């Protein structure tokens, strides 16, 4: 026994790092369900009680879980289902149907999916027979025939619930909620959505059949808890093979989270959004810099990751433009200042640019009109300028009205960072009117 243990601790640094990466990556990317979710105990209890009533007592229920993206709706549902299915009686008795608004884009597909997941008799091989109406009546009859005492309860989970509300006549929602209202087969309808106004999307008849039970996941976390969560998310579990490495790692993570600069970075992230997904993205970026030669996360890694996460994409794109394109953007900036945000066309921009060239051409040569037009079209391709009336309007390219999709401060900032920007172009950009 002791021999085996000593063997375990003799892992090389490379293997340890590899194992740590594996565990943490699975946590960040694959969204594995944690054994004990924190901060949502009351919601969890609420949902579990509700589902248990359906599963064991045969009550029909409907509930909506509402919360912003990345607030752990799916995680809550999964952990509750996991706990529910540990009961043996439930395991053998309850049927589960998962639907997703992204996948089941209309009722017909959704219905096929339900029949498939319930493994009903008319499914032969992998094909579902019958038309939509037939399918619906078959399914409804199958569900209606049952009663509270004898039939198996079904739990429907509808991910992206708001998308189901866009279906024609909301037939699926109506029928599901209708069954949950009347004393037929016990069903529980659990909807997950990120829209707070989801009830306004429902038709009146559908809305009246919904139980108006909502569970909100609003993430009432403060910064101190945020730091603690971060530390927890970075730590290695107890059952890590190499104990020494795990201890070192965890203590280094503790040190990291107390570091002042790391706290600043996390504060910045906390102020932009509290959801875990953006935190996971940051942590993954930091984690990807961990190698056998650099076996722990350092404050510098977190800072670098945060810099990468919060880069201004438009500024990056502006940095890559040629000097001619940059000049056109400055001309557009002047035009929108001059005419108060009115749209403009290529001729006006070119005119503005020509004025600059004529007055003070030192570094920029006089380009032919087609060359300038090509630069203008490139800007349009990058969607830095958007046409006002659709791309297919039948008018010459020169006269199509466009709008600049950039802020003035963005332009000025990009100009400061532009490599080897000629001084007169900079001056032209700062001068008020052309």
């Amino acid at each position: 026994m002791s021999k085996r243990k000593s063997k375990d601790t003799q892992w090389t640094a490379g293997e340890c790092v590899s194992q740590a990466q594996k565990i943490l990556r699975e946590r960040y990317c694959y969204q594995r369900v944690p054994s004990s979710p924190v901060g949502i105990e009351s919601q969890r209890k609420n949902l579990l009680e509700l589902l248990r009533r359906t599963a064991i007592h045969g009550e029909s229920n409907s509930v909506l879980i509402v919360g912003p993206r990345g607030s752990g709706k799916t995680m809550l549902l999964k952990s509750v289902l996991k706990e529910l299915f540990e009961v043996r009686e439930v395991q053998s008795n309850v049927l589960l149907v998962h639907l997703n608004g992204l996948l089941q884009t209309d009722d017909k597909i959704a219905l096929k999916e339900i029949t498939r997941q319930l493994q009903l008799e008319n499914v032969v091989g992998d094909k579902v027979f019958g038309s939509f109406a037939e399918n619906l009546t078959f399914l409804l009859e199958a569900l209606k025939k049952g009663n509270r005492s004898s039939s198996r309860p079904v739990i429907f989970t509808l991910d992206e619930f708001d998308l189901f509300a866009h279906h024609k006549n909301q037939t699926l929602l109506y029928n599901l909620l209708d069954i949950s209202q009347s004393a037929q087969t016990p069903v529980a309808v659990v909807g997950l959505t990120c829209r707070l106004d989801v009830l306004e999307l429902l038709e009146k008849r559908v809305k009246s059949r919904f139980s108006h039970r909502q569970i909100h996941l609003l993430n009432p976390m403060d910064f101190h808890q945020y730091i603690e969560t971060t530390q927890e998310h970075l730590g290695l579990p107890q059952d890590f093979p190499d104990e020494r490495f795990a201890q070192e790692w965890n203590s280094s993570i503790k040190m990291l989270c107390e570091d002042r600069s790391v706290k600043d970075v996390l504060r910045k992230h906390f102020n932009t959004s509290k959801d875990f997904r953006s935190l996971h993205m940051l942590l993954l970026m930091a984690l990807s810099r961990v190698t056998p030669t650099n076996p722990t996360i350092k404050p510098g890694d977190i800072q670098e990751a945060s810099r990468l996460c919060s880069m201004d994409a438009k500024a990056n794109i502006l940095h890559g433009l040629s000097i001619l394109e940059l000049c056109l953007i400055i001309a557009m900036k002047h035009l929108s200042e001059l005419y108060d945000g009115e749209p403009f066309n290529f001729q006006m921009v070119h005119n503005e640019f020509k004025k600059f060239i004529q007055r003070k051409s030192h570094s920029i040569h006089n380009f032919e009109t087609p060359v300038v037009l090509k630069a203008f079209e490139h800007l349009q391709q990058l969607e830095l300028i958007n046409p006002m009336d659709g791309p297919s309007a039948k008018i010459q390219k020169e006269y199509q009205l466009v709008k600049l999709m950039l802020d003035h401060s963005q332009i000025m900032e990009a100009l400061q960072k532009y490599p080897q920007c000629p001084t007169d172009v900079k001056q032209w950009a700062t001068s008020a009117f052309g």
Partner: protein
Amino acid sequence: MPAELRQQGYSEAQLRLVSEKVPCREAQAAALLALFGEPDHYSFPSIFIYGHRAMGKSHVTLTLLRELQMPHVVVSCVECVSPGLLFEQVLGSLFDSSAVTLSRSPSLSDFVRLYRQLCAEDSAKHTRYIVLDRAEVLRDMSANLLPGFLRLQELVEDNVTVILLSEIVWDKFRPSTGCFEPLQLHFPDYSKAELQQILAQDSHPSYSAELYTFYINILLGVFYSVCKDLRELRHLAALNFPKFCEPLEKGEAEESDTHKLWRNIEPHLKKAMQTVYLREVSSFQWEEQLKQDGETQSLRGLSAYAHVELPYYSKFLLIAAYLASYNPARTDRRFFVKHHGKIRKTTFLKKHEKTSNHLLGPKPFPLDRLLAIFYSVVDSRVAPTASIFSQISSLVTLQLLTQVGHDDQLDNPKYKCTVSLDFIRAIARTVGFDILRYLYDFL
């Protein structure tokens, strides 16, 4: 060679090979590889790579995936006109292609179901990668496709990563109700020095490398302020190199005689900017001309063929349409009525609209006004026959005029004239009409 490209789980030799193939992009390749992690580790569900055209986005990604032999599929979204084609390509190359049978117009639901099914038979030992090139096209396909692909890892419960490549920033992709946020990675543009380094790699075997570097310097001097696109620059470099070498071949100059070489090539490159760069002259024509050593002006570009032969009345109709589009309606009396009484010029010319008409573009005009101007500018008496009206509609089909507002086709249609000033002047010259005298902007 910087030793940045290092990752556990891959052999040293392979990594060295990759880093040789991605000049000036080692940092990006290393960052990407670090995100990928070891082959059997999970990677982030979706990665969004953006940067300008020809900045090595797909080159780096593909080189990594191919050289390190990761299971991957590359799909160009432009090719996939329907989602079905996209699904078929993905499933066909990730799994054994014989097992894939999709229905005729599959939905995302079918795709996910089939993926799970195939995945259960052939589960992933290594991360699978789906690379979607030109991802901006995905936005125009059905609304659930992009959010679906972004969270594909969660939907199919497989170790799969979707990589999106695009020129356009992520902000323009985000659906209104939000979606799973991908990890964004930026490929910055090549600096001038990096461009030089990359372009200098494909030097000509019969000349020294220094000479080619010198040539590239000249080329960048002319084109860099207009174009940073590596592909375009490389094309131009290959095209104009024979001209650069001409004095050397003739024996008029030595390799060290840089000033003379520069004097020889610079005007030539400036000409190339107006011709080959704009695709006025095709590369083939350009090469032919270099061989024949002809004068560069002799070559007519595509835009020189803009002249169109039209019937007599069509010409006048077009002239009338141009006048109606670019003159304000209240000046018609002054131009086209013989005894228009006195209109004072001061009230007539307002400063702010003096030259603005050719800046703002054509204005729409009703059919009546077009005909009125037409009768006034054409000398002889013309009956309003069917052929006149059919000529108007055929001008519309030739896209010399466009109809605005499609609500009433017969009753009172409105038109716009969509030809340039040069074009209309050429037309007016053929019928002996001085158009500038009638244009308000040029008074």
